[in-house]
């Protein structure tokens, strides 16, 4: 703990009342909408553990919806999120759930846009910081502090080398790289967290690679 951030102690600037149950929840919702990459039209929210027990007191439900609408944790419109969701035609439901032996402030979010659907699980880990640890059933670790490239591709030799070669071509430095799959030879997932923002051309270039089926680009938030 030698390098504590000044603005981790003096901050964050956020809408109350709780950094983990409100501010972190907004960021989890925002992460879901950013990963989906389009306007969220429908959402099923499953609250786990401490989130399920105290959501009403810290307005975790309002906060998640605010995030799904694209708000950040300091947005003064957060209290009006339910009303704004209705105006935007966002249909949502909340349930409590047991996700097993995971962080007590965890939430599973299944969100739908007009083209895509994403199913993710994340946790609010304190002070407004978050960690998305599952996307579409793949184990990941995304905290929003880096730009992220997520690819769905065939689990074949050489594909990861091709993807990272494209990133290098655009002079993008990879800070963290995770690859994951469920069954050998089928669908696989790559998550590259980068120091530099990923331009559209790079995303399109990756999408043209043989064996790559889908690409998502998540700017830091």
């Amino acid at each position, binding site marked *: *703990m030698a*390098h504590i951030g000044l603005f981790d102690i003096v901050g964050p600037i956020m809408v109350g009342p*709780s950094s983990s149950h409100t501010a972190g929840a907004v960021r989890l919702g925002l992460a879901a909408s950013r990963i989906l990459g389009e306007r969220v039209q429908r959402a099923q929210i499953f609250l786990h553990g401490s989130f399920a027990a105290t959501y009403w007191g810290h*307005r975790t439900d*309002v906060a998640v919806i605010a995030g799904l609408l694209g708000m950040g944790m300091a947005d003064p419109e957060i209290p009006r999120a339910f009303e704004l969701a209705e105006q935007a035609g966002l249909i949502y439901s909340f349930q409590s759930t047991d996700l097993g032996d995971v962080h007590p402030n965890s939430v599973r979010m299944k969100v739908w846009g007009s083209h895509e659907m994403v199913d993710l699980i994340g946790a609010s880990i304190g002070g407004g910081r978050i960690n998305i640890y599952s996307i579409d059933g793949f184990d990941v670790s995304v905290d929003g502090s880096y730009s992220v490239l997520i690819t769905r591709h065939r689990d074949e030799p050489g594909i990861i080398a091709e993807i990272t070669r494209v990133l290098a071509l655009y002079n993008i430095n990879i800070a963290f790289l995770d690859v994951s799959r469920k069954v050998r030879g089928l669908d696989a997932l790559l998550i590259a967290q980068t120091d530099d923002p990923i331009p559209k051309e790079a995303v399109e270039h990756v999408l043209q690679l043989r064996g790559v089926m889908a690409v998502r680009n998540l700017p830091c938030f």
Partner: protein
Amino acid sequence: MEISSAVQLQELCSSKKKALPEIIAEYEAFRASKTTEQVRKDMAQILAVMRSSVEEGIKDKGEYAHIVKGYGVRVKDAIGQGKLLGDGLLQKVILYSLAVAQHNASLGRIVACPTAGSCGVVPGALLPIAEELGSTNDELIDALFVMGGVGIVSASQGPISGAEGGCQAECGVASAMAAGAITYLAGGTNEAVFDAASLALQSHLGLVCDPIASLVEVPCVTRNATSAVNAIVASNMVLAGIPAVVPFDETVAAMKAVGRAMPETLRETSQGGLAVTPTGRRIFKEMRRKYSLEN
């Protein structure tokens, strides 16, 4: 560049022959790969939000809060009617700290400092003092860096959450940060800054985190006011030459040890203290009935 204790931070200041705010700004610039100008801009933004949280909090009727309703409004009205004891400064400290904490409870925008639950302490103590001293924005931003330095020193050696250390780690640390900042604004030396921080924290040792119904409302909001006033008392004692006796680093270590000795029921679990009084239990039951997800 590293900050690990108050002693080491003060040595850093003397070896580099630089003032405390400058060292803290350089530390953050180094740590986050930013310029010190950018870091000062970020701190100016913190100050702006602290001020807006006071202004908004004074008007906040608590629409989105469950128990705590319009505490800022009430104090403002009472001051206007001449009902309150003490001088203008004391009344303003109570007003500002309650306003910000009330605003937090009611989904208002605040600066967590060091936590959302203790967000009223620093603006509540520092802004009225700055207004009384006629401090400039730049002086106030310097004081915020000092305040952050006290916070970093504390966080590097002890807990900063009610779940780990009880309320002493939230309102107690906030009070220490505020005491350091106002002592700096009043012209105190680096040693005086950390003595005031130490005294402020010493008065919070053992303070438990026992929120009713897991809300950041009772007793959190009113504790913000007492912790803000406590910061000024600590600062005044030091300015009068009263020593902290136990230095800040040792007080933080004591706070950490006390936190470890505290049963879990008294660390943000709402299973002890005020949360389990007949009134605390009754409020919890009412809330649970009203908001059950299983309905």
